[in-house]
């Protein structure tokens, strides 16, 4: 089956003119593609060009060089009229929401109004969305008088109501309190899982990235240094900067099913079945910290470890006091952190046969 990319970003470069003659490179040679229904997360530190990149994707800014292909059509240089047509297919939610100086209702209705939707339909659609985002009772309030969290919900609703094909979310959960951030997380989940929409979002919150991403792009100083699945990015960051930024994490996606006898969750990841203490069935994303995985040469007899897998050391990365081991157990790879001393004691080298073990309680659900 050929999967057509919804959006292709080819060699986007953006220069901002500075003083006479000189210019500052904000983005250089950024390329990636996003499939339909995928959630692509761009992570990177402040000032790395995330917002500029997203604005270019939302057709709010023009790239200096490069191409944007949307559903096999070049949308880099469109006429004003066509630009509006394509902008209407996308949504762009910004980090700091801005709303019109009018009621919540009118704000949410705005996108439909500019599209010339009939008033009766506008009313019913807006009412529906207001329920979804939990703004009931606030319809008649002026949107400017709301709190930051409520305002962000209005902003989300403004974009929700126009049912875009592509959601572009720019650090939407930054500046929100934990409660509002988790509410927002639920919306994103809804867009992703229930509505199967394509999302491109930026964040500097790693847990958010792990939770939502199908693929992650690391943007550092205007360059996309690495693109890959969350597992790839978090187990083998390419450069030191990425490693520091993302930290290390073993991330797996699998299907959970609770075992009736033990009451433990058996999560099937390709050929591997991991036992976890959480109780969430169905599609789950789990994470195991590299420090919580033990490694031995002979099969351990201790029963407290629910997860014992036989594997082979693929790679050893020496980091001074500690070592990163990449161990392949059937289809899956695990990143394990051990001290340099235990590496010596175990006489580990690439190709060694080992047993890895970790507790069911160390399997964290994302």
């Amino acid at each position, binding site marked *: 089956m050929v999967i057509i990319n919804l959006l292709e970003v080819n060699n986007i470069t953006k220069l901002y003119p500075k003083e006479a003659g000189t210019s500052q490179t904000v983005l250089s040679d950024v390329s990636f593609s996003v499939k339909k229904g995928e959630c692509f997360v761009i992570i990177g530190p402040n000032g790395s060009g995330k917002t500029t990149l997203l*604005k270019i994707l*939302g057709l*709010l800014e023009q790239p200096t060089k490069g191409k944007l292909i949307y559903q096999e059509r070049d949308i880099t240089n469109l006429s*004003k009229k066509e630009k*509006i047509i394509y*902008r*209407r297919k*996308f*949504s*762009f939610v*910004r980090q*700091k*929401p*801005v*709303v*019109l*100086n*009018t*009621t919540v209702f009118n704000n949410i209705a*705005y*996108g439909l109004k*500019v*599209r010339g939707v009939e008033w009766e339909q506008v009313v019913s659609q807006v009412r529906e969305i207001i329920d979804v985002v939990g703004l009931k009772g606030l319809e*008649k*309030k*002026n949107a*400017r*008088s709301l709190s930051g969290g409520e305002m962000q919900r209005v*902003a989300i609703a*403004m*974009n929700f109501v*126009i049912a875009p094909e592509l959601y572009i979310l720019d650090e939407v959960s930054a500046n929100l309190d934990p409660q509002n951030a988790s509410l927002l997380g639920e919306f994103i989940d809804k867009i992703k899982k229930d509505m199967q929409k394509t999302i491109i979002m930026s964040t500097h919150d790693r847990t958010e990235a792990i939770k939502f991403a199908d693929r992650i792009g690391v943007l550092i100083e205007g360059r996309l240094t690495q693109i890959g699945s969350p597992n790839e990015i978090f187990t083998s960051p390419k450069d030191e900067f990425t490693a520091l930024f993302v930290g290390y994490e073993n991330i797996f996606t699998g299907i959970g099913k609770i075992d009736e006898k033990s009451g433990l969750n058996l999560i099937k990841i390709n050929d591997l079945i991991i036992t976890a203490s959480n109780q969430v069935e169905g599609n789950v994303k789990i994470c195991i910290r590299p420090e919580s995985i033990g490694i031995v040469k002979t099969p351990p007899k201790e029963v407290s470890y629910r997860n014992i897998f036989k594997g082979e050391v693929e790679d050893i990365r020496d980091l001074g006091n500690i070592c990163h081991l990449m161990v392949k157990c059937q289809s899956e790879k695990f990143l394990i952190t051990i001290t340099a001393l235990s590496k010596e004691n175990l006489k580990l080298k690439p190709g060694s046969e080992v047993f890895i073990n970790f507790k069911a309680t160390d399997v964290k659900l994302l």
Partner: protein
Amino acid sequence: MGLIIFLLLSKSGPLGPLGLLYSTTAMVIAQFLLAVPIIAGTTKAAVESVDPALKETLMSLGSTESQLWWEMIKESKKSIIAGILVAFGQAISEVGAVMIVGGNIRWHTRTFTTSIVLQTRMGEFGMAIALGLILISMTFIINYALTHLQMGDGNYKSTRSK
């Protein structure tokens, strides 16, 4: 300003053949030309001072250029009304220009302000003061109405105080 229009409209001026000098039309033109720069200037400044992020948000929601401008004008309504008030204050108290181009002809191009000037000159201070008071109260009423419009709409205040 009054002098320029006078020269343009005078019999030997370029617009002389239209015969507009000393007519109400000439006065309207003069007042219009005096008020427009003030309103245009404040409106432009007001629209430009709207948060660029709001402009971007509306663009991303799919508004066309004209829809965007309309929304910008609505957003800066308060400053625009303030500009109109200033221009109105200027126009209603204008003496020089209307005197020059209107000629202060009785029953024809005599206004409150030109009349006050004339009455004062003739020593009819009582009449002048009476006219002045009427003019002032008219100005107050119109200012009040416009200010009310400026504050009232958008139910910002009413929702805030709830």
